[in-house]
Structure formats: structure tokens, C-alpha cells
């Protein structure tokens, strides 16, 4: 029996919010989870405490996102509650009211990137990122590791922290060649100032508990241990489950519980997971029990058959090889910078981003100052098929004097008309200032 821990739960099923009546992200998504949590009587355990979600504010969103035309226009009340729920969970942990906490909230957020023109993959704002920056503002800077166990690549979280050396983003997911959003390969490894703080581990379809627990033990835990985060956050997507209707993996509730027990996240935030009847009730109960240090060995799906869920030997071999490669890459992370940068003062990348939920296309050019002292100031020039154009200058958290100076100078030098942009934004994360011109 493991040691009991005090676990906070923020449960917000948003029974009055849906994308559409038959959309996977709909009212009843957490209905059977709620039934199961209630029937198991989990909230009656002395070491499990339920909290009411708080409301995130527009300031919380502006601290991490550039929303176009503005934050109010791209969200609903549900998003403020969902992000607010994640914040409440984090606050309870940081204030010592509980040892760890799980925000069972919806809608999810890990596909929402730095710039937001609309919804991608059912996500409008990145609730983990909003939570992390809220924590940093309120409790002082923290080194954070986000372990994204959703079946889809956590591309939004990756984008937001691409240049941040203090935020480790590890995503395990079904291989992007076979699933939305199509990204998340090992060579996506972080920006030039933050190499190695983005780690991607794509898993082949039909990977079972065995495969992802191997990755956890051999790759994730050693990297997290070396990174020495102050906080470990689990972006707890549950769509790797063998019953999920929109993915092709073979994870079980037992596997998820075991992962949680080994990873020991301080905060878990629910992300995807659309097998609302066959998986979510059991996976969520398993995770809650594991977080609280209670016996989860009897949690089992009604149709659970471990024999039928075993992964092929070929998959096992593939995952073993890839794990070695990823770990090797991580060990050599400090050696790549000179090679990549080649003496340049700035690094630039151009991207096309598709907002599948809202059908919006975005063209984006992102420039970062090469810096050895901080994450580097960033300039983003973004144009969307909605017609909206935005230019944003971002001063990073704990920015060095030079990045601040250059960033501010750059912001004041931008000519809106000349650039042809409608909005000019300064997001100063260090001083918590958000200015729109």
C-alpha cells in the first residue's frame, strides 16, 4: 500500500456547455465520470477534498496568449471556469492545503497556441499555460515540467513554451503521421534558446500500457529528474484508451493509474478523452485513487481483457529504440546550439497553422533574439484568413536587460500602417504588462 496523500479535486463537468450536440466535446462528456466518482464515494475520503473552480480573468489569459481580436472574443464563460478550475487546483497545492490536485474540467486547452484566432482541436485557450503563468505571477517563478499524456500531440503547449528554458514540455502521443494535429516528432526539440526543453515521444498506433510505461521509466522520469522542476504538471488527456472513438491506442485505466503513481504530478489537468462511457469513468477514478495514494488495483473497465490489448513485439522493439534515441538527444542537447544558430543574432521560423474547429488558416512569422541569458524576446507577425493581422512583441519572464531593451525598442519602432497590421501588442511577461496599440 502506498502512502496516502491529500488530494484536491476540482470537478467542473460544465453540463450546460457543448461545441455541438453530437460533438465529442459535449455536455455529457464527464457525466459517467461523475456517476462513477459519486458512486465510489471518493469525495467522502478524508484525504480527498473537492473545491469549487474559480474564474480565470482576462488578465490571466493575456499573460500567455495573444488573442485576436481580443480575449473576450475567442472564449466563453466555460473557458474562464475551466482555466479557473486549473488555477484553483494549483493554488490549493501551492498554498499547502493539499499534496496534489486534479482539475477535472472542460473544455480542454493543450492545442491552443501562443496566438489565438479561434479554436483548434476543441481548444481556445491553453488552460495549463494560463495556470502556470498565474502561479508564476502569484507565487514567484517556478521551474515547471508539463508531461502531456493526451493521445494528441500537445502542440499548443509546445508552441507557447518553445523558447522557454524554464518550462520542460514532454508530450507522448500517437504518431503524428496517423493522427491530428500531425506534429510532435523527436526533432521538435525546442527553440535555439531552450533546446531540449521540448521533448516529443510519438508512439505507434496500438501501443499498450507496456509501451508507454517503458517510455515513462526510461525517458520521462530520467529527464524530469535531471531537469529538477519545482512543479510537475500532468496534462492528463485520456484518449490513449483502447475504447476511445477518435484514436487508435490500447492504454487501460490500470496503465493510466500506474503512470500517475510513478509520475507523481503535483497538478493534473484533464485534457482530451472521448470514450465517455467506456474509459473516462474508470481512468479518472484510477487517477484520483493513485493521486490520493489509495488502492487502485480493482479499477477495471467492464470489457477489460489484458490479453487482447497486448502490443506486438514489433511495437515493443520500435519503442525501445526510439526511447534510446530520445534520451540520447536529450543528453546532447547543449551541443546543438552553435550548429543551429551559426552566429546569427536572430532565429526565424515561418508556419501555417490551421484551426480545425473554427476553419481558420493562419500564417505566422516568429523571430526570437538569440540569447544565452534568458528565453529571448520574441516578435510574432500573424495573419489569419479571418482578415485579422496582429504583430506582437513578447518580453520573456525573467528577461535579461538586453532582451528587454531591444524588445521595447522594437515594439516602439513598429509602424502599424507600414506593417499592415490591425493590432500591435506588447506582452511583457516579466512585468506582467499587456498593451494593445
Amino acid at each position, binding site marked *: 500500500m502506498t502512502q496516502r496523500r491529500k488530494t484536491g479535486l476540482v470537478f*467542473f463537468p460544465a453540463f450546460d*456547455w457543448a461545441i455541438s450536440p453530437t460533438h465529442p466535446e459535449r*455536455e*455529457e462528456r464527464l457525466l*459517467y465520470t461523475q456517476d*462513477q466518482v459519486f458512486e465510489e464515494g471518493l469525495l467522502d475520503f478524508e484525504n480527498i477534498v473537492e473545491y469549487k*473552480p474559480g474564474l480565470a480573468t482576462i488578465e490571466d489569459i493575456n499573460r500567455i496568449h495573444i488573442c485576436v481580436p481580443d480575449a473576450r472574443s475567442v472564449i466563453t464563460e466555460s473557458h474562464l471556469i475551466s482555466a479557473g478550475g486549473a488555477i484553483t487546483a494549483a493554488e490549493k497545492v501551492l498554498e499547502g492545503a493539499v499534496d496534489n490536485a486534479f482539475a477535472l474540467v472542460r473544455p480542454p486547452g493543450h492545442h491552443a497556441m501562443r496566438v489565438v484566432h479561434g479554436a483548434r482541436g476543441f481548444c481556445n485557450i491553453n488552460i495549463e499555460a494560463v495556470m502556470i503563468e498565474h502561479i508564476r505571477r502569484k507565487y514567484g517563478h517556478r521551474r515547471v515540467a508539463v508531461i502531456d499524456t493526451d493521445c494528441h500531440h500537445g502542440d499548443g503547449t509546445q508552441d507557447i513554451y518553445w523558447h522557454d528554458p524554464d518550462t520542460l514540455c514532454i508530450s507522448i502521443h500517437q504518431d503524428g503521421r496517423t493522427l491530428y494535429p500531425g506534429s510532435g516528432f523527436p526533432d521538435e526539440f525546442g527553440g535555439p534558446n531552450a533546446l531540449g526543453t521540448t521533448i516529443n515521444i510519438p508512439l505507434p498506433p496500438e501501443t499498450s500500457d507496456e509501451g508507454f510505461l517503458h517510455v515513462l521509466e526510461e525517458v520521462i522520469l530520467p529527464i524530469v529528474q535531471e531537469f529538477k522542476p519545482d512543479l510537475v504538471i500532468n496534462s492528463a488527456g485520456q484518449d490513449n484508451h483502447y475504447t476511445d472513438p477518435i484514436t487508435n491506442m490500447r492504454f487501460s485505466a490500470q496503465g493510466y493509474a500506474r503512470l500517475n503513481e510513478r509520475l507523481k504530478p503535483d497538478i493534473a489537468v484533464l485534457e482530451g478523452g472521448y470514450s465517455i462511457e467506456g474509459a473516462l469513468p474508470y481512468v479518472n477514478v484510477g487517477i484520483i485513487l493513485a493521486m490520493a495514494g489509495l*488502492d*487502485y488495483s*480493482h479499477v477495471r473497465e467492464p470489457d477489460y481483457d489484458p490479453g487482447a490489448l497486448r502490443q506486438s513485439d514489433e511495437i515493443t522493439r520500435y519503442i525501445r529504440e526510439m526511447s534510446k534515441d530520445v534520451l540520447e538527444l536529450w543528453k546532447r542537447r547543449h551541443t546543438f546550439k552553435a550548429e543551429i544558430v551559426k552566429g546569427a543574432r536572430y532565429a526565424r521560423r515561418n508556419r501555417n497553422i490551421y484551426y480545425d474547429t473554427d476553419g481558420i488558416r493562419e500564417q505566422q512569422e516568429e523571430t526570437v533574439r538569440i540569447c544565452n541569458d534568458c528565453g529571448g524576446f520574441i516578435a510574432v507577425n500573424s495573419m489569419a484568413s479571418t482578415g485579422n493581422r496582429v504583430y506582437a512583441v513578447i518580453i520573456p519572464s525573467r528577461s535579461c536587460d538586453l532582451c528587454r531593451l531591444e524588445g521595447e525598442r522594437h515594439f516602439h519602432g513598429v509602424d502599424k500602417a507600414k506593417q499592415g497590421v490591425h493590432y500591435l501588442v506588447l506582452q511583457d511577461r516579466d512585468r506582467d504588462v499587456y498593451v494593445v496599440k
Partner: protein
Amino acid sequence: MILGIDVGGTHTDAVLLDNFQVKKKTKVPTNQRHLVSSLIGVMDDILRDEDLSALERVVFSTTLSTNAIVQGKTDRVGMIVASGPGLAPEDLRISEDMRFVSGYVSNRGIEVAPIKKGEVEEAAAGLKASGIAHLGVVCKFSTRNPAHENQIGELVRSGFRHVSLGHRMSGNLNFRRRIATTYLNASVHDLYSRFVDEILEFAARAGIKAPLYILKADGGTFEIRRSAEQPVQTILSGPAASVMGILSLADCAGADAVAVDMGGTTTDIALLADGVPLLEPLGVTIEGHRTLIRGLKTRSLGLGGDSRVRVDDGRLVIGPRREGPAAAFGGPWPTPTDAMIVLGLTRIGDAAKAQTAVAEIAGKLNLPVAEAARAIFEKTCRDIASAVDAMVEEVNNKPVYTIHELLEGKTLRPKRLFIVGGPAGAVASRLGELLGCEAVIPRDAEVANAYGAALARTTAEITLLAETERGSLTIAEEGLEVKIPAHFTRRDILRIGMERLRERARRLGAVEPDIETEIVEDQEFNMVRGFYATGKNIRLKAQVKPGLIAGFGKGGPRS
């Protein structure tokens, strides 16, 4: 005429109402060893020389089940439990006499694994062999499909004096609480049945023809014969009686308020939102057992007029126990009542004895006697006030599940304090000050509990779940599952639910004008396979609101 009797921990109160006016009232010490004799004694006394044919109803509130549980004077109970997947059996264990068997249904009530007859019979035989006569049967999600509990019940019934089935206790989800509730129900079944038999025998002998009712924890009543099947519903009905008393004696309409009943041993606190008492959403807790028994949200503080006052490490400690009456009444220790006597806040008992007792505390605190009395009184009031504040805060922090609830959520801000019980007169104004409330002591406050019981109406609740994909409708409390067509709608569930509720209320003893129904939960969800809607999951919970019988006032508890 209506007779109301409250058998409390210290006193038994009775009130005879004629046309809702107090015709007679009485208060006698409770015979703790034989509660039924207190009750029968008072009844005999108050009804003497009365025209029994004019008696319309008699309502009791009794601490019998509560006391038996609190004092551990209950029967040994065997439990047969089908726990299915989820929590480990060890996390469900409530006693040694618990046997786990196979078989379970899913959260939708679909059978996943059947029960095994041999296993059940073996478990029952083992329990019986160890001398157990009372059995509880509980299966996970049995309120979604009672078939397994019914099957096990049939298999074992002949071997035991009584078998309690989990789904009959409540329609709410919560397996651990269902186990505790069923266990407690079985454990007081014999004791309570004897009590009911004695009352019925007395009533027959005395020629009382009026229906007899028992008060439940939710402030509602049920007919005494029906109560014998579910004695656990009567636990913690004491605080319910006092709240119903306050509702009937004072004008509570419209405002948020605190209801306090300060007795000799304990102080019970309840809250009113817009004049309606708050219920414990899942169920009341007794002796550490969290149950599914619907009851008022009350907090019982181990602090009353007769609580022992002592000095510990230079600090005043009051309660949590009563060790005899106040010193002014010959008790062994100083009490808050003694302090109130010294301060001249009440003129009861022997003032000299009170003075001597408080002087002992004053000595230890190095204070003049009057100041020590003031300190005891102040601490008594402050302890109660902080318990009230904590309770209000807890209510205001309770979790919510929809955007609407979160954004429109009402915050409870009590403006009035209703206070009854022995020391009410002495503490009312100071307590009101501390709480920032106007303090009100209702008339006839000393028999408020009996008054409340007398006027409480019969309550009932019913929980329905329609699954059109499965073609099934479950009525949890009735243990019923019936077939429905695929085109079954929310309108159908409302119609059936309301009919069944009225029927159930009548069966429990309700009279027609008192059946004031209310929908507590009304939700409809799509069932989706892939991206296509395949059916509806429609949920309805309805109740006959707790409240006062027709012809008297308005108001009643709500969740």
C-alpha cells in the same frame, strides 16, 4: 387536535394543538433507559380528559435509533456486498461480518457479470453460522439496476430475521454510503420494531384511532408502520424537529437566517436560505458513518448550558461533555448556565451554588467572580458564533457543476438568528451581535421541537433514470425497472415520476393537501456512439417538499 411529542436527550416535550393553537404543553425529564415509557407517560398524561375522537394525528420525534447507534447498542449485522470494479474491498469494509461476492452492473445499470448463487449461499451460511440474524445486501450501482440486490435478497431471505436492501434506502449514488446506511438500518431494525409495537399496542389500548407518524431527519414524517421498514430514516431527527419548530413558530419568510437550538448538552445549528432550511446534499453523518439519509444540514456542537467548564493550561475549556446538570441545580461542575445565573441573565436554580462553582474557575483564572462569569459567557457565545460562521462559509464554498450555478450562485448571508432551547433568552442578544444578526426567540420556544414535529408533513422522494437506448426506466427507491419505448421523452418521465411520487407519498402516510411536489433534478443527455446520437439518458429526481401541513404557514427545506 394534533399531538406532537419530542423525546429529546434531556427532556421529553409534548404539545397538544387545537386549531393550530397550543391547548396544552408539558415538559418532563426523559427516561433514557426506557424511552418508550417517557413517551407513553407523556401521551397518557396530556391526552387524559381529552376527546380522543377529535385527535387528527400524533407525531413523534425520538432519539431511539440515534442513541442506539451512538451508544453502540445495536445488533450485529452481516453484509453481503457485490463491489464490482473500483474501490478495493478493504476500502469498503465497515465490519468484520462483511462478505464480498461477484457480479456487477455498469454505471448505466447494464449487467456486466451475473451474481453466483453458490457464492451468495456460502456467504450467507457463513454469516448465519456465526450467529448473525440481521443482514444487509448492497451492490454497486444498484440504484441504476436493483436486480442483483433483489436476487441476493431472495436467495438469503429465509435464513435471517430481516434483510435490508441497499437500493431501498435512497435513490442517490454512493456505494460506501449505501453500505453504511443499509448496515445501520439492519442494526437498529429489531430495537426499533419493538418500539413501534409498544407504541401501537399502547395506542390500541388507549383507543387512539388517529394516524401515528414518526419524524425523519429531513423534517418530514412517515407513518409509523412504514417506518419499521426503514428505521434508519429516523436518525438525527432531533435537530429536524427544532428547525420545523422554528419554521412553525416564527416568521422566517424571505430572509437568510441561522436557526440555533441550544440545549443542555449540545447546540444544534441549521441554516435557512430565503426562509428555507438547507439539506445535507448527500446524507447525514452519524458516529463517523456517512449515510444516504436525507436530512437537514445541521451542525451539532458539544456545547450547551450544562457543559462542564474547566481551566486547562490557564485557558477556559467548555464542553464537549455534559457531566450532570448545572451546579445551580446540584450538578458537580460549573457550567455556562451557572455563569449566566451569576451575571443575572437568568433567574433559575440556586444562585449561591452557581456563585461557588464559578468562583472555583475565577480562582484558577485569577479573576474576580463576575469577570470569570463574563469570560465563560463570552466564550460560550463566541464558540457558537464561530461554528455558525464556519458552517456558512462551508455552504458558500460548496462545489457546483454548471456554468449557470457558478455564475448565478447565491451567497448565503444570514440576517436573522432564530434561537430556541433552555439558555436561548440569556445568549440571544450577544450571539446576535457576534453574528451581525437580529436575534429572535419565537413564542412557545421551550416546546418548539414538539410543535415542529406536530406540524411536519409527510415527505417522499423518488429518483428516475430513463435510458432509451436500453429501453429501460429505473425507479430507484421502488426497486423497479420497466421497459420503455425508444421515443420515450422528458415529458413522459415527468408524468410517470410525478404519479409515482404521489403514490409513494400516500403510501408513506401523506394526506392529499400536503403533497406539494417539487422537481429537484431534471437533466437530459444525448447518448452518442461515434458521432451519432443513439438515444437519451433522462434523469429526474422529485420530492414532496419537507414543510408544514396544509392549513399552516408556508416554507420548507430545500437542497
